[in-house]
Every structure is written in C-alpha cells, then in structure tokens.
C-alpha cells in the first residue's frame, strides 16, 4: 500500500496535494497496489482526493495537528501507515514535507529519496529520479529497503483526475504532545508562494532601484505571476528576502520564469534551472543568463518589460 500525506494548510488542499495523490496513485500502479491518502487536522472536502486516484482517504482530525511539528506529524503519519498497512509513503517536497521526509525515513528505517521528479520504476529494483548538484545533474536512486519514503518535487507532474470522490474514514492514532510552540505565522496573502508558483517574473540589479519595480509588478499582475528577485537586490533591501531566488534563496520550478535585468550568475541559475521555460531580458548580449534561456530579448528592460506587458494584455483580451 502507498500512503500519501495530503497537506491541508488552513484546512485547504493546494495543487501540490493533488500532485502528491496523483503521484501516489501512479506509484501504486507500478507496484501493483493501491493508494491511500491521509489528511491531518482540518481538511475541507477530503473526499475529493479520490478524484486523483486515492482508493480511500483516512484522516486524523485532531485540531492539534493544524500547527506543524515535524516530530508529532511524523509519529502520526508513521502510525497511520502501520494502521493501513502501507510501506511506501509520499509527501510533498514543501517546507513541512522536507522536515517530515527525514524523520519518517529514520522512524521507519526506510530508504528515502528527496524531491522525486518522476514516477518510480520497479524493474530490477525500485528506482526514483531526482535532481542533484543544484539541478546540474539527475541521479537515479535505488531503494533497497521494504519501507520507502519519497518527497515529490513541486510541479514535477500535473494532477490527473482519474476517479471520483471517495469516503473519508477516521483512523485512530495517538497524537503526541508537541514540544514546539508556534508563536506567530507571517505569510504573504493573495499571491502564490514562490516555491509553488507556475509563473514567475523576476528582476535584478538592472532595475537600478526599488522605485522602478512597478513595471515588474504590472507584468506579474497581467500574467497572474509571482514576483521574485536576484540575491543582490534582496541583500540591498530593494525587495524582501523571501523573493530571493537562487542557491541560498528559494529554488523555483515554474512553467515560465521571466528574468529582467539579471545577469545569471551560477548561484542564481541553481535556483531556476528546473524552470520549464526561461525568458531573459537584458541589454547586455553577453549576459551568461542567455545561455540558460529558451527565449531572449536583448534590449533595455525599461522599454521591453512595458511592451511585453502590453502585448500580454492584448493576448489576454483576445483569448
């Protein structure tokens, strides 16, 4: 049995939860078994996980689980896995999932693969691919233990509707007391967080100053994209740190990454090279970012970005 932990922050599933269930369903097919989805704490309309291939949904509804503590969550997930007879566990490669992956692997003495990017194969060993060396290479891991834990890279596969809503069963698991007290949560509301964003508009030092960011925000609004920036821009305080994309910042993997006025240092590329399509706008034709780009525009971003915004508005109005 494959058990998928479907995260429901503030009681709601995000796309990453549907991706994880789709992935769990496909993994179960490879192994000739079934996929069960697990929800912890509040989870509205959990039965919908059946659409993405969960044969059933089990839930531990204890409100204490609405606050994330990797120790508590890992204990509950491992016990739930035991209760449903699952030996393979799938979590999202989110901030919570990353903390859970290691804990679950240690708890279950399981081989684990972090940020899986493809459905496992099981032909002469259970094998899973993931990016290594900050996206500069791909490694195929083989897991040799009976128990296995995988975290799924965001946007690696798309949610697929293959079934219909299923029943949600409560599973009886003891929830241990947490030793971590959450004092405050500060998140930006109304935009998709960068690690999950499918469309990203990013800008760098070529912007010359924080007061010029209006054109980037306008373009992001037209696209429905999340804004991002390069490290020097975050370091000088032009933009908030959570927008910093790159080796020491956030790694993104959107369908479209538009970079304006970013030269493309290797540390920045390490955070963006999993993007499906990269558009680079830079007035310097020698900017290294062009080598990593799919589409390039050599020109002054203060002309090109507003022009691109107008072209997109026209496109949106006609489609």
């Amino acid at each position, binding site marked *: 049995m494959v058990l998928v932990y479907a995260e429901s922050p503030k009681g709601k599933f995000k796309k990453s939860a549907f991706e994880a269930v789709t992935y769990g369903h496909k993994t179960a097919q490879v192994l000739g078994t079934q996929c069960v989805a697990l929800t912890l704490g509040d989870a509205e309309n959990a039965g919908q996980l059946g659409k993405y291939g969960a044969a059933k949904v089990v839930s531990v509804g204890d409100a204490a689980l609405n606050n994330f503590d990797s*120790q508590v969550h890992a204990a509950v997930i491992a016990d739930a896995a035991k209760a449903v007879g699952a030996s393979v566990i799938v979590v999202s490669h989110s*901030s919570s999932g*990353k*903390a859970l992956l*290691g804990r*679950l692997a*240690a708890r279950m*003495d399981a*081989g*684990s*693969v*972090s*940020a899986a990017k493809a459905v496992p194969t099981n032909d002469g*060993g259970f094998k899973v691919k993931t990016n*290594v*060396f*900050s996206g500069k*290479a*791909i*490694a*195929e*891991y*083989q897991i*040799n*233990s009976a128990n296995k834990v995988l975290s799924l890279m965001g946007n690696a596969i798309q949610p697929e509707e293959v079934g219909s809503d299923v029943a949600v069963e409560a599973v009886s698991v003891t929830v241990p007391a947490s*030793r*971590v*007290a959450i*004092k*405050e*949560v*500060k998140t*930006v509301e109304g935009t*998709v*967080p960068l690690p*999950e964003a499918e469309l990203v508009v990013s800008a760098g030092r070529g912007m010359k100053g924080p007061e010029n960011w209006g054109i980037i925000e306008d373009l992001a609004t037209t*696209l429905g994209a999340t804004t991002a920036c390069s490290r020097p821009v975050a370091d000088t305080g032009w933009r908030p*740190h*959570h927008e910093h994309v790159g*080796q020491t*910042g956030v790694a993104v993997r959107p369908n*479209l990454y538009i970079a304006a006025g970013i030269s493309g240092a290797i*540390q920045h590329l390490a955070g963006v090279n999993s993007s*499906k399509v990269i558009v680079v706008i830079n007035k310097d034709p020698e900017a290294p970012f*062009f*080598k*990593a780009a*799919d*589409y*390039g*525009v*050599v*020109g002054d971003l203060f*002309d090109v970005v507003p*022009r*691109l915004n107008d*072209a*997109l508005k*026209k*496109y949106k109005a006609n489609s």
Partner: protein
Amino acid sequence: MKLLVCVSKTPETTAKISFSGDNTQFNEAGVQFIMNPYDEWYALVRALELKEKAGGSVTILNVGPAANDTVIRKGLAIGADNAVRIDAEPKSSLFVAKQIAAHAKEEGYDMVFLGKETIDYNGSEVGGMVAELLGQPYISFATAMEVNGNTATITREIEGGVEVAEVDTPFVLSASKGLAEQRIPNMRGIMMAKRKPLKVVAATDATDLAVVASYELPPAKSAVKLIDPENMDELVRLLSEEAKVI
C-alpha cells in the same frame, strides 16, 4: 551550552559536474571541494555566536574520509573548539544520520546544527533524521534565533513567509540564509586550528538503504531564441503556441 555543528564537504558551487564509471560515480578529478556553505556560513557561525555570548563549546562533526580533514580544519579556524570525524564514506543520508545520532547520544548536546541542505545532493534529509533518531524537536530552515536560558525563539521559512516557533533544548536545527553572517578565518585562527583536537572515530554499523544507481546530465538546452525587442507580440505568440506556458 554544548553545541554540535554537522558539516559536509561539497564540490565548489561553480564546479564542473561530470561522471565516471559508466555514469555511476561523480568524477572528482579537478573538482575543488569546500565546506557546504549552509553549514559554514550560517550553522557554524550562529553556534559560535551563541558560545561567545553564553559560554560553552562548539564541536564540529563530519562523516567522511581523511581527505575531509582540510574542511574540518577550516571550521576550527573559524572558531570551533574541537572536531570529530567519523571515518566512513558518506554514501546515503540515513547512514550519515545514524553516525551523527550515535555520537550525539553519547555526548548529549544542547543543540545540533546543520545547514538546510548540502549543495551537492540537496536532500534536506539528515536534520530530520538526526532529530528523529535522538527523539528531539527539529526546526528546519531557521533564518533567525534568539536564545534565552534553555528556550530558543526561532524564525523559520515556510511557503510564502515565516513562522516563529519556541522550543526548549535539546533540539536539532537546520540553518538557512539570514541565521548568521559568513566569517572569514584570520591568520591567528588558522594557526590555532592546527593545535585544536580532531578526533577520528570508527563508524557505527549501518546499511545504505537508498543509493545512487546512476547519474545523467540534463538534456542540453537548445540555443536561445532571440526575439526582436520591438516585437513583444512575437514573444507572446511563442510562449502561447510554441512553449504553451501561457
């Protein structure tokens, strides 16, 4: 405070990545190795700051062969008091975590620090594993930490923002950018590092449960398609019809 900082040796950020042995091994020829930046810049420095303020000791731990001693000495030069190297090839995350946990159990540290990930395998796994093996809380992706007595108030990165958590020692923490500022070792530190104790201990028995079977390089990117800066309608058309991303 008795503090442990786990450090890894990783290829330098700009290293050329290639493989040998029918794509089963990372080709180390000509590659420069460094201390994993998250371990060095953030985890180690924050631990040193705590020691400087409240007293105690900072121990560096590495799981690896004798060739890793240069990286360990750098940590001592930056200011750690002593170091332990567990003499084993670090082939899988759980193997490494079991080595760290065995040492930490014996020593009983107040805090165990690690970087949020290594820049080679990017797994982000070992911190959680060590915490689980020690039965301790784990705060991942810490960007700030204040300590008052035995209680730490830690800011950690979550999707689209931060969360502030309070936790009592002992615990395990992974360090993100912001937790501290990089320190460059000075000559005095480098000289002193040569005399600081570096203990080499044998590995605990543990199996590699997940190992790399093979590597591949990502498909080569085709050459960039340049678009006339006057003609953004064309770029939009390509994004829609060719790339199908809008």
